[in-house]
């Protein structure tokens, strides 16, 4: 399950919102975030297929052909139409993978029996409501849909954002044109000095130009 970073009900102040306006060639540096996972607002209590197509905006063809491996809370999904996402569920998406394991973990794999212990069992308990999902994107997928998701905005823990900014500041200084925190423009160089709530959520949106 996802860490409970957006459920901090003891916080009274609204969560900080950081908006970055960057050149599109900077998109690759944000792929780190997808390896670790980001929270996205979503209608939960729906199927994986609904999440992929209606929340992430992917076409059924892309889901069918491109996303070859789906994990829901670490379990391999064979049928996106029958796996239901709970609030704060973790979902990971991957393109086709090499190796026997790559073939075995694919959705609907001929070799699915070999990983029966971690196959996700479908369910029909649909009860749609608003929530959040921890989304991880691996290998080719972040390069194809990551920019769109970042453009809508994601949630991540303050210390995760801090680590990201520390690691990527030089690249951001090269290709980021503007940064706004809660609607106010800030000096990029001062992003590192910004106090982010360590264990609570920060909303990050990236506008690629």
């Amino acid at each position, binding site marked *: 399950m996802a860490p409970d970073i957006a459920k901090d009900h003891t916080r009274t102040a609204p969560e900080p919102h950081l908006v970055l306006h960057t050149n599109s060639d900077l998109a690759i540096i944000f792929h*780190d975030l997808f*390896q670790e996972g980001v929270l996205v607002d979503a209608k939960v209590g729906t199927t994986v297929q609904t999440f992929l197509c209606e929340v992430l905006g992917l076409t059924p063809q892309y889901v069918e052909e491109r996303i*070859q491996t789906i994990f829901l809370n670490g379990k391999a999904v064979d049928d996106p139409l029958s796996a239901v996402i709970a609030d704060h569920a973790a979902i990971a998406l991957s393109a086709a993978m090499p190796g026997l*394991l790559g073939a075995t*973990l694919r959705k609907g794999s001929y070799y699915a*029996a070999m990983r*029966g212990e971690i196959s996700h069992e479908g369910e029909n308990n649909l009860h749609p409501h608003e929530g959040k999902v921890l989304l991880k994107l691996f290998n080719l997928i972040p390069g194809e849909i990551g920019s769109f998701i970042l453009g809508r905005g994601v949630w991540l823990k303050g210390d995760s954002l801090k680590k990201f900014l520390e690691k990527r500041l030089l690249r951001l200084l090269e290709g980021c044109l503007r940064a706004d925190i809660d609607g106010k423009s800030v000096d990029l160089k001062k992003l590192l000095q910004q106090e982010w709530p360590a264990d609570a959520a920060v909303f990050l949106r990236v506008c690629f130009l």
Partner: protein
Amino acid sequence: MDQLLRIDMGAQGGPKVTVTEPGEYEGLGGRALTSAIISKEVPPLCHPLGADNKLVIAPGLLSGTAAAMSGRLSIGCKSPLTGGIKEANAGGQPSQMIARLGYAAIVLEGKPEDGSLYKIFINKDGVKIIPDGSLKMLGNYDLVDKLKGEYGDKIGVISIGPAGEMKMSAASIACTDMEVRPTRHAGRGGVGAVMGAKAVKAIIIDDAGMKMRSPKDSKAFQEANKKWVEGIRKHPVTGQGLPTYGTNILTNVINEAGGYPTHNFMWGRFEGCTKISGETQAELENARGGEGSATHGCHRGCIIRCSGTFYDKDGQYITKQPEYETVWSHGGNCGIDDLDAIAMLDRLDDDFGLDTIEMGATVGVAMEAGLAKFGDTQGAINLVKEVGKGTPLGRILGNGAAVTGKVFGIERVPVVKGQAMPAYDPRTVQGIGVTYATSTMGADHTAGYAVTANILGVGGKVDPLKPEGQAELSRNLQIATAAVDSTGMCLFVAFAVLDQPETFQSLIDMINSFYGLKLTADDVTALGKSVLKNEKDFNLRAGFTSKHDRLPEFFKKEPLPPHDIVFNVSDKDLDSVFNW
């Protein structure tokens, strides 16, 4: 490519060369040939390091031709690590070169008693066997540099490092790559120790003046090869995923599945996974740049190019791009999340001539024994250096995880038939546990790797959702793999074959047009079965029983987080794998 080059290293008066017709081995290549010779000619109860063992080095059926991806070299013997039959294979240049020189295999026999260390030079004019004491205890990198100085830089080299000379059971045999670097290793089972026992430090191959092997039906072969290349290039795994990220693309996904063995198989997820993932590795290599950084082939004719070249932060060459198995064994398995440290460990392994899977697993066991702490990068490097130096501790470690576990009284030792397990926990993906347990090779992920079984129709149709089908699937995969291993094809072609029947057909068409045959999928299946039959038969005569086809006890007793599952395939199911 139809002659056997036999070299009796123990002949009276010095090593003796005999070139023979293939006879009963005609039409075999790669693993089919190595296992046939070992099964027929090596006494199963012989000492692996004794004069009666043989080391068979065989290109695949299509090696030396224009067929893309056909550069795998099989090396077989009785294994000093497992005590059973062994086939380890490697990429690099030598397979193509040996095939073009006309040899179906090089067979090293006997054992010299004079204490000399030899190099063997093979070119179109014949074979020279030369004692050369100056090569003693050289690392593979210095060795190859020295040989290039003597024979030029167009050679291919098959060699051992100090570990092979010291006859360690984790010793590998190195094959040089396109840059004539000793980076491609037949790693598993201690094949390097057998080469060391034969007192052969290096085989230098020069194929100058030789042409590519000619098919019987050139037009049909060219057409089939064209379709073959198209099929590999258009598939998302072989055309995109592997070239972009290499095999380490698997790290994040296996970790997500909870099947990434961490801290000597204690947990199924590694906290530092994203720091050593294929995505992170590719970005680092691309940022550092340099020739062949993130995408590079291991031999000419490779169009997948899943490898790369690892440079340090100052642009100095360190090693080839460490593969998934290496990144795991020296990385997550030892709690290490530093790609530079992992690359250094890979370099040391390659230089000393060690199997990276066996050494990473051994270091993991040593860490559990308290020789270093999990996550201690310098501690891990120091342990591997002990092996290179041949200290008493190094001698223990260099003989693998099983020996190390026994010496230090560790219960959690991830081996089958004495060979360390690769990077997939069998509790999470139990079907691969069936292959680990029952493979003739010991714990070996590649023994059931060729995900072509359904295309081949091996064993008929299996219900993929039937839980009890695991033994059946493993059997079919092992049969298919044995067949692919005999062609000289890289196993990664299996993904294009799995999804694209026309690509599989083009592979069959290449073999048929090259040899003037009319093979069908059934014939390919029969070949795979015959390979396994030879291997199983050898192991039975060597004293193996069904009790050796088992995983270590802890896999049945220790639930693996995060899914908290144990290995639960019954012994009865395991024993059914070889019933056909």
